[in-house]
């Protein structure tokens, strides 16, 4: 039985408001880390808030543990949510924040103490119990928010971009910690982010959303290697997939598969000539920007991403032999952008 399921879930707003959700069918697996990924305004946060009970769906159903919860208040759904801002109660101490959900549930005082100690211990914030939120660093606040979420052992965790308020360095370590933490407690988690790196690194499965619709659901490898349409193909990957329009549709190939011909050993490959316009050196890799010189797709702008260990030197405005293995070519319908092969 799915922990969370949505059936044709729809939310429309008045004109001018963003974040609408259209006909979303979704089912999470027990204990899985499900990531909702999409650009801002794609409806991912609205979807999460409908599951939490903070927004009322316009149409469709939400099921938690097999029961329809559309008419239940957030309180009745017994889920936990971590907000982007953490939403800690500023007038309460860390301890007061963590026990608040327990107090709301009517848990006895000594039991509250025990559970708060357990949650704080799990996140390593036991020494901060008497502090107020404003006296904590960003990383500590995030841990308090997590402790407050797990303290009553919910069946479902909702996380709304919980790492976006941390600086880049802290974000990487917090990401790994959060992932480990979820594996350890094994609670089904729905995680909203616009950051594809977070999504790829943490998600068991990724739900790619755009303009309120689900474009693809799959493991990180599936959505990256076998994108369902041109949106997914270009939203994931940095730089995004090269798309070139030809007679029989749009052909896509990842920059890391578009390599100097010498480096492509497979006999099943397609050769292209690339005129280089400029090069970015990024330490571990180089990004080459250019246009295809001849053939079916002449004039198309493409990008190649090669490891810095690759010895060749490239000159601006010169033309080189490049190639893609045939198996790395993806074909999309020119009109709808939907994947053909």
């Amino acid at each position, binding site marked *: 039985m799915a922990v969370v399921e949505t059936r044709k879930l729809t939310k429309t707003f008045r004109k001018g408001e963003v974040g609408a959700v259209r006909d979303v069918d979704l089912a999470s697996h027990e204990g899985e880390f499900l990531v909702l990924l999409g650009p801002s305004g794609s409806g991912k946060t609205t979807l999460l808030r409908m599951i*939490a*009970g*903070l927004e009322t769906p316009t149409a469709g159903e939400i099921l938690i543990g097999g029961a329809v919860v559309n008419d239940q*208040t*957030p*309180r009745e759904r*017994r*889920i*936990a*949510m971590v*907000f*982007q*801002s953490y*939403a800690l*109660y*500023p*007038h309460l101490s860390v301890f007061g924040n963590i026990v*608040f*959900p327990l*107090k*709301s*549930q009517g848990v006895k005082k000594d039991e509250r103490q025990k559970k708060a100690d357990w949650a704080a211990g799990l996140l390593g914030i036991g020494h901060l119990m008497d502090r107020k939120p*404003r006296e904590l660093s960003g990383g500590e606040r995030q841990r308090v928010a997590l402790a*407050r979420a797990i303290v*009553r052992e919910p069946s479902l965790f*909702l996380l709304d971009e919980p790492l976006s308020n941390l600086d880049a360095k802290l974000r990487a370590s917090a990401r790994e910690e959060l992932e480990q933490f979820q594996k350890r407690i094994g609670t089904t988690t729905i995680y909203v982010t616009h950051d594809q790196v977070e999504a790829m690194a943490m998600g068991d499965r990724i739900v790619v959303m755009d303009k309120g619709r689900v474009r693809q659901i799959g493991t990180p490898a599936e959505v990256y290697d076998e994108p369902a349409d041109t949106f997914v193909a270009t939203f994931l990957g940095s730089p995004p997939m090269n798309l070139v329009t030809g007679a029989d549709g749009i052909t896509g190939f990842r920059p890391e598969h578009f390599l100097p011909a010498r480096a492509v050993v497979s006999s099943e490959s397609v050769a292209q000539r690339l005129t280089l316009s400029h090069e970015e050196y990024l330490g571990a890799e180089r990004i080459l920007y250019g246009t295809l010189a001849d053939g079916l797709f002449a004039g198309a702008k493409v990008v190649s991403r090669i490891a810095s260990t690759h010895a060749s030197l490239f000159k601006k405005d010169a033309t080189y032999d490049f190639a893609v293995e045939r198996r790395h070519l993806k074909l999309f319908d020119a009109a709808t952008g939907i994947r053909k092969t």
Partner: protein
Amino acid sequence: MSARSRERWLGPAMLLPAVLYIVALVGVPLVLAALYSVGDVKVGSVGYRFVGLDNFRSVLESPAFRRALRNSFIFTIASQVLSLVGGNILALALKDAFPGRRFVRYLILLPWVAPVSIGSMGWKWILDSLYSIINWVLVWLHLVKPLDVPMWLGEPLLAMISVILVHVWHTLPFTTVILLAGWTSIPKDIPEAAQVDGAGYFRRLFEIQIPMMLPIINVAVLFGIIFTFTDMTVIYILTRGGPYDTTQVLPSLAFFTGILGSDLAEGAAISMFLLPLLVVVAWLMLRTARRAEVT
């Protein structure tokens, strides 16, 4: 004159008008009142004789004063409680968008911007013994007998209730606006988080939202106390302290004794009794302001 010395003079010079203004309009009368309260000054008298605490002694012995002192506290506390509760309810109702909200907000602000004297005149008619529209409605609903209507301003208890309610009518918009600002300053996430955490409406209200608004509520209450404790407009217009001094408060008693009764010294002594409370409130206000700055 060098730039540096010009700068040294410019600051104080720009401050001077404000200082003069405060000294002339607040400082001088305050010192005068203090001097009068220990002298024997009457309206029109030319000399000044120091009489020590005689005035205070005679004031404290007067039943009218003790009644006014008690009334001042009743008037202030009752109207503050009512306007705080009422203001909070109104602020809650006005917080979320609904069609016509701007218009309703404007209506609620009206009593505050209307001059208190004009508003109170209206109330004087509404509460009049012969022409009271309230009584007319009560009779029409057969709730009271036509010849036995309540005398809103003529019976001690009703008169007190009337002046308190009219004062609340006048201060409520101010409290509402301050509390509305408080409500809107709470990030939307926080009550939502409390909702997901399983807190019901009243737990969210009393454990999360009101505690978060406490600094703002403090400001509203402290301002309200000062406005109310020193104010006599509503009482002056509605009851003139009557019937039989039962709605007299310290400012009105001081005015009736000192100005209309021409006993300046005793009037000054009465008004000096306002000082201790106002000093305490002013100190609390400064403390709240400082705390708000720190956090």
